[in-house]
């Protein structure tokens, strides 16, 4: 490799890159990927966000990675490297989980799908693809199973919103009504046979993620058919505000290699009843010791928007924590944030300050998720 190649960042593109550009999307670099942040033709982030909360939106999430574990000891391998209990998964079922370092901190958060008897699919984050794959491969060597990085095989498209099922039903023969949230099925989609359809997402809404072949022609055809069926094209901007309203963590923000499971408040996805998994011993000790910081939801009381990295101040002006994610919440029409603070400052209803351009601006600790989708009545 020449020096030039070594220093030129290699920006990756999904198979839909040209389509996004043709649509006039604003593109940004995200974790090494050239991705749409918003589509002016959709009306921008707020309109995209509202479309997902009230109707249906479509996202290109092909930058997400996929690791497949197959073989007689695939379950044992998954159990060893992830904190949730994959032995509870029926075939066709999925669960939110995480890969942990021995210190109990995060390699990444993942969705584990059980596709068949000894066949598991881990859907991982874009920015951690290589790190995750190497980590999974290195930590499963003792198990009789095959580990494959199949990230580049798929164009992953998320169809999200209360009308997602209605829309996808017009494009598939799969019986979506029989697929519960966090379950998967296979079916013909846009004429493509045997497509993996997962009822999952990152928006706090009902929705599906479909995995279609990654060639540009097929990807564009499926994307355009979804748009023609009435979905609003949505970018990473809306994806972020949607996940924040729903308190879904983002790697390097709410979770990272220095934050542990208890601090992040992901206890219910961490099954300490499992006798062994990487990180378990450290988490056992950390649980006994108690946490020094905890993730809280904040709602701005005074005028101002908390942003990622802003300081949290106590009433006396002392710095006590920091904002992990902060933004206007388009559906709630409030300015919200997630922040790490010491447990004694985490009581709901108490007031803290966010330092915004040198000023302490009042915010209230509120319950999370900020937004919960209405139950179907």
């Amino acid at each position, binding site marked *: 490799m020449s020096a030039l190649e070594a220093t030129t960042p290699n920006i990756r593109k999904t198979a839909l890159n040209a389509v996004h550009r043709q649509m006039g999307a*604003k593109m940004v670099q995200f974790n090494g990927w050239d991705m749409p*942040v*918003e589509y*002016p033709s959709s009306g*921008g*982030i*707020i309109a995209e966000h509202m479309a997902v909360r009230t109707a249906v939106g479509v996202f290109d999430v092909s930058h997400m990675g996929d690791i497949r574990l197959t073989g007689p000891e695939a379950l044992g391998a998954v159990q060893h490297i992830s904190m949730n209990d994959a032995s509870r998964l029926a075939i066709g079922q999925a669960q939110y989980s995480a890969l942990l370092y021995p210190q109990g901190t995060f390699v990444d958060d993942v969705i584990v799908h059980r596709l068949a008897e000894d066949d598991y699919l881990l859907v991982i984050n874009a920015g951690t693809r290589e790190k995750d794959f190497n980590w999974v491969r290195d930590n499963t060597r003792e198990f009789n199973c095959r580990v494959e990085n199949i990230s580049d095989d798929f164009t992953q498209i998320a169809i999200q919103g209360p009308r997602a099922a209605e829309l996808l039903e017009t494009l598939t023969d799969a019986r979506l009504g029989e697929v519960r949230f966090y379950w998967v099925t296979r079916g013909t989609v846009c004429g493509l046979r045997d497509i993996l359809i997962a009822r999952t997402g990152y928006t706090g809404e009902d929705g599906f993620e479909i995995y279609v072949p990654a060639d540009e022609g097929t990807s564009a055809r499926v994307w355009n058919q979804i748009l023609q069926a009435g979905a609003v094209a949505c970018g990473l*901007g809306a994806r*972020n*505000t949607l996940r924040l309203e729903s308190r879904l963590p983002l790697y390097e923000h709410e979770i990272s290699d220095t934050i542990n499971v208890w601090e992040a408040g992901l206890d219910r996805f961490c099954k300490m009843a499992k006798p062994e998994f990487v990180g378990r011993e450290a988490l056992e000790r950390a649980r006994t010791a108690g946490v020094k910081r905890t993730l809280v939801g904040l709602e701005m009381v005074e*005028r*101002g*928007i908390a*942003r990622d990295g802003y300081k949290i101040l106590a009433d006396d002006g002392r710095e006590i924590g920091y904002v992990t994610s902060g*933004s*206007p919440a*388009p559906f709630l029409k409030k300015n919200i944030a997630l922040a790490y603070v010491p447990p004694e400052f985490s009581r709901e209803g108490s007031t803290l300050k966010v330092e915004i*351009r040198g000023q302490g601006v009042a915010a209230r600790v509120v319950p999370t998720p900020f937004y919960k989708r209405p139950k179907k009545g």
Partner: protein
Amino acid sequence: MAYPADLKYTKEHEWIKPDGGTASIGITHYAQESLGDIVFVDMPKVGTELTAGKTFGSIESVKAVSDLYAPASGTVTEVNGDLATAPERINKDAHGSWLVKLKLKDPAELGSLLSAADYEKFVAEEGGP
């Protein structure tokens, strides 16, 4: 986008519209387009002294925070209060949505700013519309 010829522009994407010894200040169409949905404007109080080229406030979209730079020096005489409750007006009409009005310290300062044609060229070079 045609940039009005009676305004002067900065490379930081503000416009200024002189009117005798006073002037109104706003952000350009290009700026609002790059910011996206504008949700918050943090502006100085009446009486604040602005210095040409220095920040005097900030403007926020859903995804980003940008500083506002004073195109000229002067004293703030009026603040557009409508933008506190309806900042999205800037997206709809950037050149018609003034942020503050100034009593200019030295109207000659405006001579160094960009004309509409120069600004349009500058934006085109930045890769904008």
